[in-house]
């Protein structure tokens, strides 16, 4: 008996089993891993640069700013002019070879950073084209992470909104179950500016409102593909303003 028929069938199953959700999951992983690599490299390069020109390094603690300024040229003259500080430094004198080595490394981080941004733009477009409602309500990165954590748009569409609200906070959730700590109020949806900028005591309520609209959006995207994001947006904003106003009245009382 020949196994060719089995191979053909298995190949078909494999092809059918992979979906857009898998692509999104892999892209999110790629973005996260690239960012981690950037941070690790940046720390090592930063230490090296601190030795050479501590006055500038103190001002460039942030990764993206550091890369932006230093990738223009690592020499004290270039960086000093860009930051408008004295080029007379108390740092160690690196030779020309050392400086060109440093330059190569900084450019490498810049490449990584550019690549990550490129991937992000692509992911943005992917979510925009396929999951329009989720894109408008949750923003592309949160939508992508929700799809990744739930395992696909189908699973997300069938998920209760209370679970969507805490997706990504499994550690806190289990310590709540096991050790009786307070329950988590939000998972990956916390990155949404509406929650992030809200005062501490309202975040949970806003997270609940947002999760319910995300749930609606996911259902729309999975079942009908109809773009109803304007409506959802409006509902969400109404709900959020109701929550914020309610709270202030309570405080005044």
């Amino acid at each position, binding site marked *: 008996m020949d*196994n060719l028929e089995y191979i053909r069938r298995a190949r078909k*199953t*494999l092809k059918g089993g992979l979906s857009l959700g898998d692509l999104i999951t892999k892209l999110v992983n790629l973005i996260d891993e690239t960012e981690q690599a950037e941070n690790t490299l940046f720390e090592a390069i930063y230490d090296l640069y601190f030795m050479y020109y501590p006055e500038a390094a103190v001002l460039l603690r942030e990764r993206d700013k550091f890369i932006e300024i230093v990738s223009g040229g690592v020499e004290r003259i270039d960086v000093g002019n860009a930051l408008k500080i004295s080029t007379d430094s108390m740092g160690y004198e690196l030779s020309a070879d050392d400086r060109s080595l440093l330059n190569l490394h900084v450019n490498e981080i810049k490449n990584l950073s550019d690549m990550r941004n490129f991937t992000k733009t692509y992911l943005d477009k992917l979510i925009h084209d396929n999951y329009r409602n989720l894109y408008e309500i949750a923003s592309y990165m949160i939508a992508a992470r929700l799809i990744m954590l739930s395992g696909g748009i189908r699973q997300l569409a069938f998920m209760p909104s209370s679970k969507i609200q805490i997706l990504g906070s499994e550690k806190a959730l289990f310590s709540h179950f096991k050790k009786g700590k307070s329950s988590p109020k939000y998972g990956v949806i916390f990155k949404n500016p509406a929650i992030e900028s809200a005062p501490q005591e309202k975040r949970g309520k806003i997270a609940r409102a947002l999760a319910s609209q995300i749930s609606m959006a996911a259902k729309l995207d999975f079942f009908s593909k109809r773009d109803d994001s304007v409506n959802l947006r409006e509902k969400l904003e109404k709900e959020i303003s109701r929550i914020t106003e309610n709270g202030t009245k309570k405080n005044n009382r």
Partner: protein
Amino acid sequence: MELKKIIDNVFWAEDKNRLLVTKNLVVGESVYGERLLKLGGQEYREWMPTRSKLSAAFYKGLRTIDLKEGSKVLYLGASSGTTVSHVSDIVMNKGEIYAIEISEEMGANLILLAEKRKNIFPLIADARKIESYSKFVPKCDFIYQDVAQRDQVEIFIRNSNQFLKNGGHGGIAIKTKSIDVSKPNRVVVEQTLAVLRKHFTIIGSIDLYPYQRDHALIIVRKK
């Protein structure tokens, strides 16, 4: 180096240390980076106990197992095909291995392996959903399971009820930590044996330490 036969196509290559080897079905091909040995004009593949639970069982004293040339085998949880390739060496071209694997990524490796070894029949399916592959799998002489799931014993029982011939043997590699993480190794094995006794005659149970941590291999015969 001299060869000592254990079962068909499986040998101890005895030198200073003993080394488990299988006769290579596809000469010149190493499947997952294992060593190839040439002994007396015949090529053998090393079967590493740290990579394969069945191999670890031989190292821990498994003398015999009802696998022979021409056997039909149902293999649940084939993964990328490390152990499958050695079972394929054992049953040779006359035998058939029906390899079930759920994960697409692992399945890709398995399919590529099946293209080289004509006795492997890959099926990308969930071993819990027997009806999804039941018409592609005949009655088998041997069932081997390595799935590391909480309900793996139940999966094994249902599959052997459907596919195993009466009196046929089966091997279950159980991962005790995925059945119950809070109980010690031995207790979980005892519990599993108690469940299996209702359906099978237990032939043996082997703890695979130190080659595989928290694993045991149980050999059963269908009543």
